[in-house]
């Protein structure tokens, strides 16, 4: 039986359970007039039965699809023709892959495939058996579940509570997926980083002043000492993020103040969507804006002023990144400034304060914790930003505080280390995971601090 046919049959059984159970619930209550004597609305009895019909069968499908192939393959290995009997490991996988290809009817007639024809046929028959067994079991489970629920229906059955419990479990499951994904990502980075730190000492990575991740392939190779001191990357990241925040925070804040306190509703209705467009521009586009427009502009400007400006200067990258973050800062600040109660503004205005005095002395101080939280979130955004810096920042790790020079960032180095053909057992590649771990921890810390700050502020006015 085809898998889709099976699904259709199961759907039919579930729907039938719903309809029948609902009808039975009404019947046990003595028709529509007696519905008030039921614990729950009739539809809940329907959902109750439908869940019993669908749940176990779906669980079986899930488990079966995960477990059946390895079991079948185990049986196939036993009947492999003689020359292949003793093969192990990756080569065995290749052979089995050929069996699969043949079974799917896509064989290309190589010598090995000729020899495996019989095995493939055996594999096919096993698969067919597995499928029909699955279909029988699933339909049986759906029927049994539906029937069980159907038999349990009586006016005192708390069908609504059962249904709501299941729904809640589904919701909890959905939210745990996000948590476990985060955990999984963290763990995958942690394990690779641990491999890196077993080669390069922890302190050398965190406090080393030289970054030059080329490791030697041959012992006598020149110029590939392999230094993994990440400090120049951190300073480069900080420099570019710093420039970005110098652009984004004042401008974003001023936009928020204007929109909240001065702008007419019509202006507000126009400017807010435009800012959202700015926030929606892909960072790749910002990237080539930085590389193609901003960088040459700054270089020419620098030449006119007699300054030496690198064509991948931290200034240009930072400026563009700042523009990217403006909507972020402005919309977060907008929220917190709006959350300042109107009564405070009225109180200040009624004392004869001007609008600007009110903003400076009452609104902004009251909104400050929230604004700080927003800025922290923006910083973590800037630190983690990748595309702009990959396209427009430099590659050489230089430790400098001069924004006119080219610097590189943590994210740029991660990309460079991982792009192209890589061996996953060299320090060079593993360094990317150590950098990723640092990045993850720093942004996590910033986010947590920002959330705590914002929450504390929210409590003040509620």
């Amino acid at each position: 039986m085809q898998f889709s046919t099976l699904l259709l049959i199961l759907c039919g059984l579930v729907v039938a359970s719903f309809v029948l159970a609902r009808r039975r619930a009404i019947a046990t209550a003595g028709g529509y007039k007696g519905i008030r004597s039921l614990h729950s609305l009739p539809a809940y009895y329907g959902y109750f039965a439908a869940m019993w019909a669908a749940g176990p069968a779906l669980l079986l499908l899930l488990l079966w699809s995960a477990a059946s192939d390895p079991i079948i393959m185990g049986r196939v290995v036993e009947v492999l023709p003689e020359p292949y009997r003793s093969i192990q490991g990756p080569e065995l996988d290749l052979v089995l892959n050929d069996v699969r290809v043949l079974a799917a009817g896509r064989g290309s007639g190589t010598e090995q495939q000729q020899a495996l024809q019989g095995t493939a046929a055996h594999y096919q028959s096993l698969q067919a058996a597995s499928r029909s067994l699955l279909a029988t079991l699933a339909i049986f489970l759906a029927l049994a579940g539906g029937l069980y629920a159907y038999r349990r229906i009586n006016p005192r059955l708390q069908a609504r509570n059962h249904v709501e419990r299941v729904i809640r479990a589904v919701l909890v499951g959905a939210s745990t997926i996000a948590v476990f994904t985060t955990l999984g990502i963290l763990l995958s980075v942690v394990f690779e980083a641990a491999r890196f730190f077993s080669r390069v000492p922890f302190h050398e990575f965190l406090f080393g002043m030289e970054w030059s991740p080329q490791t030697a392939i041959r012992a006598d190779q020149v110029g590939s000492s392999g230094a993994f001191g990440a400090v120049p990357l951190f300073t480069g990241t900080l420099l570019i993020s710093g420039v970005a925040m110098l652009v984004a925070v004042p401008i974003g804040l001023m936009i928020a103040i204007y929109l909240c306190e001065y702008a007419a509703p019509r202006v507000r209705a126009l400017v807010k969507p435009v800012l959202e467009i700015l926030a929606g521009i892909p960072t790749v586009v910002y990237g080539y804006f930085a590389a193609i427009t901003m960088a040459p502009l700054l270089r020419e400007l620098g030449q006119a002023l007699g300054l030496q400006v690198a064509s991948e200067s931290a200034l240009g990258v930072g400026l563009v990144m700042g523009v990217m973050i403006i909507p972020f800062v402005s919309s977060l600040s907008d929220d917190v400034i709006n959350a300042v109660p109107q009564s405070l503004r009225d109180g200040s205005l009624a004392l004869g304060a001007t609008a600007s005095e009110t903003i400076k002395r009452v609104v902004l101080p009251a909104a400050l914790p929230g604004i700080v939280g927003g800025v922290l979130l923006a910083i973590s955004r800037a630190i983690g930003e990748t595309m702009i810096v990959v396209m427009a920042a430099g590659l050489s790790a230089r430790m400098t505080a001069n924004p006119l020079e080219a610097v590189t960032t943590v994210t740029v180095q991660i990309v460079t280390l991982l792009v192209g053909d890589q061996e996953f057992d060299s320090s060079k590649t593993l360094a990317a995971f150590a950098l990723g771990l640092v990045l993850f921890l720093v942004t996590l810390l910033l986010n947590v601090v920002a959330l705590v700050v914002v929450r504390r502020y929210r409590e003040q006015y509620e």
Partner: protein
Amino acid sequence: MASRISTTMDAAAFVAPAGGGEPGTVGDIHASDPVITVRGGNVHYGETHALKNVSLDIGRNEVVALIGPSGCGKSTFIRCLNRMNDTIEGARVTGEFRLDGQDIYAPEMDVVMLRTRVGMVFQKPNPFAKSIYENVAYGPRIHGLARSRSELDDIVYGSLRRAGLLDEVKDRLDRPGTGLSGGQQQRLCIARAIAVNPEVILMDEPCSALDPIATARIEDLIDELSQNYAIAIVTHSMQQAARVSRRVAYFHLGMLVEVGATDKIFTNPSHRLTEDYVTGRFG
């Protein structure tokens, strides 16, 4: 039900008084020594005509209570006197509003100066997220009323004393004003208002968010303040109006129905609507 219908009909008849001319307010709208004089005041919020042709004086050292059912225009009226309606989108004020003879809505009238002369206390206590001291010092600071720290101290302490709050807070002036109790917060807001030494204090239901004891304290305070300030207080409590005011103005559907001495309004009102309201027949 029948009385409600007749009330509405009375109000309708009231919009166009017989003979045109003067608005049909019953009683004497004049005060002997007026600080505020309003003649033919109208307010529109967009399409809504919120205040209809109101004329009223508020005298020096006098407490005028504004009473009436919700939405009758009493808050709108006092918000005209310090131009707080300016902050409301689509509000339009017409008519004559004068403070000491100066037109409140004249182009040359600076709204900042106006509001230092006409202070306001709001329904819900709204201390700033600052220390108690800074809350009171706020007005004097922005208007440069104190040339030195000691002068500022004098203003702050004096205002807190006059608001009857000094003894309760003098040990914690550097603590946030939002940490005080509701009644203390409201007295802090009164102290904040009198710190800039206004001539008139507008109070928009200043006790509606407070418990009876805190209310009694504020009422005592209003009584004391009336020796130095003209006070217009909006209230939903007729007992409060009777306790604190010298004159009472009864508003109905945006119109000023009756003005009179407090005891006359509560014992022997002239207008049917006023009588219905003060005897609790509606409102």
